[in-house]
């Protein structure tokens, strides 16, 4: 057998003396398991580890936050420790953690403790020298005495102190401050805040003199400016007109600064003029112009109308821009197609905005008009002038954008708005429900539509350019003819005489000639598109009446050139088609060749495998033990062993000495035969 051939043989009987650890086991299987841990030692289960960890972390000491290291560097609350400086315990949800930290702080909230060095930044001074206060640690090592930790002096509150672990303690004997929405008081008193506040109010109120109230019967206390503002707000909501006037008078008398401030109806003041309202003509000075009043609505309507008009102007400008860009495209600047597309999109956006603003203007005007008729809104009415202006604005908008009067619909006042919103909702849902393929198709259709729109614009521009070119050609031809006339009047006269003769000799030939002449013009018109029809007609008329031989020659040459151009383009297209076809054939051929190679390789592999199977099926020439012999020998040995076992049992268990003796003799014979074989 050649050395390269390897025979697969079966081990029929194996008698291993030992098993060795080897670097490359013949069975190809490496260690299944390496048991590095002794089972007799403690191997913690998940539950055991969890229990152990829970025990370890049971103490109050929480790990310092590794994000902020317990140091609040800025006013931003750390997302890991929520400003507490400590980390949640294992298994603790954020909610549980916050609740636990709150519980640990009597104030009810995590208390950020600034422990960074106030002298330096991260241990270094601005001149890169190590901070002498913290010795470069960046932490404030000069802790205050433990009895003064976390000392907080809040307005109107008693001092809050903390323990050495930074937990805040608040003196419960503190009194409420005057602020109704004081967060510290709420934390301090918790659920009892409202009751305590009421008690304080009653106590304070009883101590006030009668002069501290705006109205008789000790109503509307105005003993301080906050209560004065509160009184203005309350009376504006609940008071009668008389009460409003009296309270306003009392407040303004006692606190003139409130009057000087720009007051709103609810008594609050603007801290500064709103820049967003800077361009507005209206001033919010009186209740007549309060938000929601008819004047307010009218102003809104006017603002929205102005915005709509501005948007219309913008749309017109964009349209002009797009048109000019399209002309540039027609003139040969292909890159401007993108500008045309962008402009068309901007136009769409502006149109959308215009629709929204027009709708808003209409509805605002409607509300203002309603207030003007008989409905009081915020207690105020529109002036007739405003009503008239709004009606005009509404009519103008209606004329511009069509009738959007919801009263003409079956729906209520907001019907138009609702229908628009419903459409938008429906569209949004449809888009959400679309499959990816559908959405892709929809987007493709939209893109095709946009491309088509742009293409139409470009085509229109091209038509215009062709018409302009034709008109210029005719004009040039006329100029040339006039020059010829001036140079050679006799030839011109002869030509006219010849034409006259022709017309006299054969009157029927004139229409034929005209038709022949016009044939070329029709071709040209067909090439140049319908946009140049009028120009073509004028050119035809001029040609029929006044064409010179040079012009005819030139026209013929032009026609020939056009035909040649057409033929060249056709040939170019055919060439491109042929090239594409050739490329496709080459690609297909390459694929076939590749598949052929794969098939060849597969056939070779299969042939090799078949050879291997044949080889395995063939009887090995080096077999050392015939399988049949081995089986017969094994069977004989097994039978002999069974006989020996039976004789041994007989010799051992029988009571008859003769039988025992005979069995022993037989055993001896059998064993002797076994040794001999």
């Amino acid at each position, binding site marked *: 057998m050649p050395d390269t051939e390897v025979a*697969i*043989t079966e081990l029929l009987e194996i008698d291993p003396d030992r*098993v*060795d650890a080897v670097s490359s086991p013949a069975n190809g299987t490496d260690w*299944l398991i390496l048991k590095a841990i002794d089972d007799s030692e*403690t191997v913690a289960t998940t539950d055991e580890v969890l229990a152990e960890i829970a025990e370890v972390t049971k103490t109050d000491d929480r790990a310092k936050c590794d994000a902020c290291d317990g140091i609040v560097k800025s006013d931003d609350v750390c997302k890991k420790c929520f400003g507490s400086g400590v980390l949640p315990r294992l298994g603790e949800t954020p909610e549980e953690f916050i609740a636990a930290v709150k519980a640990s702080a009597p104030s009810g909230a995590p208390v950020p403790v600034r422990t960074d060095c106030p002298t330096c930044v991260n241990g270094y001074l601005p001149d890169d020298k190590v901070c002498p206060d913290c010795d470069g640690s960046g932490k404030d090592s000069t802790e205050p005495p433990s009895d003064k930790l976390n000392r907080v002096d809040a307005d109107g509150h008693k001092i809050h102190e903390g323990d050495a672990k930074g937990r805040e303690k608040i003196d419960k004997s503190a009194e409420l401050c005057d602020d109704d929405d004081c967060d510290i008081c709420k934390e301090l008193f918790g659920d009892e805040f409202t009751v305590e506040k009421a008690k304080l109010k009653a106590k304070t109120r009883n101590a006030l003199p009668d002069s501290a109230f705006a109205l008789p019967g000790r109503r509307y206390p105005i003993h301080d400016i906050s209560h004065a503002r509160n009184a203005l707000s309350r009376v504006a909501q609940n008071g009668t007109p008389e009460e409003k006037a009296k309270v306003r008078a009392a407040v303004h008398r006692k606190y003139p600064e409130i009057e000087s401030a720009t007051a709103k109806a609810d008594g609050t003041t603007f801290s500064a003029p709103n820049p967003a309202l800077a361009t507005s003509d209206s001033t919010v000075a009186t209740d007549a112009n309060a938000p929601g009043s008819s004047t307010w609505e009218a102003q809104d309507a006017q603002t929205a109308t102005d915005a709509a008009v501005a948007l219309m102007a913008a749309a017109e400008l964009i349209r002009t821009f797009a048109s000019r860009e399209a002309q540039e495209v027609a003139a040969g600047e292909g890159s401007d197609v993108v500008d045309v597309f962008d402009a068309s999109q901007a136009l769409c956006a502006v149109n959308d905005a215009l629709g929204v603003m027009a709708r808003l203007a209409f509805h605002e005007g409607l509300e203002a008009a309603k207030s003007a008729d008989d409905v009081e809104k915020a207690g105020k009415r529109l002036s007739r002038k405003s009503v008239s202006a709004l009606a005009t604005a509404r009519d103008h908008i209606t004329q511009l954008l069509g009738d959007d009067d919801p009263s003409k619909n079956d729906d209520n006042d907001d019907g138009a708005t609702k229908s628009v919103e419903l459409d938008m909702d429906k569209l949004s849902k449809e888009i959400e429900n679309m499959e990816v393929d559908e959405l892709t198709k929809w987007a493709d259709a939209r893109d095709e539509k946009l491309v088509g729109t742009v293409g139409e614009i470009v085509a229109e521009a091209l038509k215009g350019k062709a018409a302009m070119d034709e008109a210029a050609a005719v004009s040039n031809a006329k100029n040339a003819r006039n020059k010829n006339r001036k140079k050679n009047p006799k030839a011109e006269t002869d030509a006219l005489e010849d034409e006259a003769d022709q017309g006299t000799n054969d009157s029927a030939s004139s229409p034929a000639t005209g038709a022949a002449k016009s044939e070329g013009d029709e071709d040209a018109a067909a090439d140049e598109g319908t946009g140049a029809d009028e120009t073509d007609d004028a050119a035809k008329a001029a040609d029929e009446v006044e064409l010179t031989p040079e012009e005819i020659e030139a026209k013929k040459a032009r026609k020939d050139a056009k035909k040649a151009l057409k033929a060249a383009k056709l040939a170019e297209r055919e060439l491109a088609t042929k090239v594409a076809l050739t490329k496709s054939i080459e690609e297909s051929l390459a694929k076939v060749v590749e598949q052929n190679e794969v098939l060849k390789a597969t056939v070779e592999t299969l042939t090799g495998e078949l050879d291997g199977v044949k080889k395995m099926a063939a009887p090995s020439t080096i077999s050392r033990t015939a399988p049949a012999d081995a089986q017969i020998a094994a069977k004989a040995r097994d039978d002999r062993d069974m006989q020996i076992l039976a004789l041994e049992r007989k010799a051992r268990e029988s009571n008859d000495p003769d039988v025992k003796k005979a069995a022993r003799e037989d055993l001896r014979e059998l064993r002797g035969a076994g040794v001999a074989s």
Partner: protein
Amino acid sequence: MTDVTYRLRISLEPDTDTVVEKTTDPNASEDVAACEIFKSVEESRVTVGLAYPHSKSDKGVAADGHIDFAGRSAVEKACWSFTSKSRSIGIQHRDGTEGHGTVVESGIHRGPDWIIKGDGGEKTIVDGDWVMAVQWDAPTWDLIKSKRLNGLSPQGRAKRGTPTPEALASLRSH
């Protein structure tokens, strides 16, 4: 004595499982709260390996130029013979290397397929394969951990025959 690090990983996200894992990477994940418990235990130096699979041809060619395989009954008898008589463990089939390992388990796998996923891929132990667990002494264990000894290989006498077509057909590939 070796330090084994148990890292408890508890995700702060709701509805996620808690995992206890052995790791030496202190930065396994930033999104988990971690706590470490150190335990010192002794290595047992035990390998579990495939001594001989049935109906599976050797991956390598034997010294006499053959590729062998053994049927189910032959492997079974070999296992019984070795376990009852010899239990000798050597290294690299060299004389004088006996005594560095002790057989602590040796038997025929009986039951459904045992699939072991490890770094070297997936290994499958099927019903009838001879599996052996050996406890090694420290020097040999170092050789095993350094991947210089990677598996088991029986040594002894055997009767070799030409396989029948049925036996060839029953050869498994894994």
